């Protein structure tokens, strides 16, 4: 457990050092949101209707950049292997990295919300539930994302492979997060938020467990 905290500290430090990249990724995400609105057209009502979808699509696209970045530093001088040989538990390294990835994605998501508000007139006063949905959704993205980016960081064609592997897997996250966010923006008269949030939570639990179990096989020889 203590190893997880040490790993997390290391990953947060690496992220902090690479914060210029994060700004660039945020800009990329904001740009995609703009592109979506341009593609749909200036119909404000329609944009507001689909704002949740655009937000999560934008975040999903940005996540592949963010996740790929996470393992670049680990692989360029085989620093990850160096830690494994200390020995450090592979499971702890996974959870540290996944938590850090989740935090970065959640931050990205939160930063894109104001963009959504401005472009689509899609805001909500229920900020705490929105934060919760973003956190659960990004938790669902980061668990398999960390597992797969560890693989693809060691292959050629890594920039194509990561989205290709990740996107089909996180379809439930996309569906549930969009639905939940949409309910927060457009109103939730029948109280459907909780079941969708539960789905997000269930997905996250499953994939964090799987990731913890399988990560060692992915990075060890």
């Amino acid at each position, binding site marked *: 457990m203590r*190893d997880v905290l*040490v790993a997390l*500290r*290391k990953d947060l*430090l*690496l992220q902090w*050092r*690479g914060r210029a990249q994060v700004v660039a990724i945020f800009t990329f995400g904001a740009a995609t949101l703009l592109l979506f609105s341009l593609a749909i057209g200036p119909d404000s009502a329609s944009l507001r209707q689909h704002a949740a979808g655009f937000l999560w699509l934008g975040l999903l696209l940005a996540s592949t950049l963010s996740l790929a970045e996470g393992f670049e*530093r680990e692989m*360029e*001088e*085989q*620093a990850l*292997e*160096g*830690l*494994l*040989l*200390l*020995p*450090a538990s592979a499971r702890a390294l996974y959870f540290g990295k996944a938590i850090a990835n989740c935090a970065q994605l959640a931050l990205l998501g939160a930063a894109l919300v104001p963009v959504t508000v401005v472009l689509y007139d899609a805001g909500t006063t229920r900020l705490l539930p929105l934060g919760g949905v973003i956190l659960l959704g990004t938790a669902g993205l980061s668990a398999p994302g960390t597992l797969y980016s560890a693989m693809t960081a060691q292959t050629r064609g890594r920039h194509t492979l990561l989205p290709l592997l990740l996107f089909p897997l996180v379809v439930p996250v996309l569906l549930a997060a969009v639905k939940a966010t949409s309910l927060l923006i457009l109103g939730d008269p029948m109280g459907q938020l909780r079941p969708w949030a539960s789905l997000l939570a269930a997905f996250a639990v499953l994939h964090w467990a799987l990731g913890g179990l399988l990560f060692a096989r992915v990075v060890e*020889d």
Partner: protein
Amino acid sequence: MRPMIAVAAAGVCRRYGRRWALTDVSFELPEGALAMVTGRNGSGKTTLLRVLATAIRADRGTVSVLGHDARRDPETVRRNVALLGHRTHLYEPLTALENLAIAARFLRMDARRPALLVRLEQVGLARRADDAVQTFSAGMRQRLALARVLQQEPRIALLDEPYGHLDAPGSLLVDGVLQALKARGATVLMATHLLQRGRALCDRALVLEEGRLVFAGAPASMPEPEGAGAPGAEGP
């Protein structure tokens, strides 16, 4: 009393793609030995060190370190072994101090600044403690990697080309490190091309040729590799 066997390899084989990088390598190193392994490029030195360090697994054969089997108990092996590898195992965006701090924390050692500065002082990097590794030269990276190995206070040190990239003071530093390790009773296996230096320091030598162990014994009776040139010349 017979010294304990620090490292024992028996029939170790490892392949890379279509090639067998190591074939049936068997040897034993007693504790406290300062050994060198040499051979031409591509002879399998790096692979051997990585197998002994449990960075990669042997496809066949067994490796045991201080009596622990590397396949069945890799964690204990790793706790006692430190590898100075071909890659530096460093995080480029982080400073020298931060790199050591991370390792220290995983090792449950003192990770505070003064303690780490002492380590950096040992390798002559104290003045660059707060500089990012990506600003370092190759030689400085090598020194930092060496500091990271020493930090682990290993009972067995596996060093892959420790003199690589280093200037004259740096090479003397490595000599000193080797002596210090030996004085502490650690076992050292060093892969190197510097035959003269190795012969002077080491008490046993292994020679690999195309993945096979062709010699294991006293450095003095080591076979001269082909094309070594005049005695005293250190080949590339």
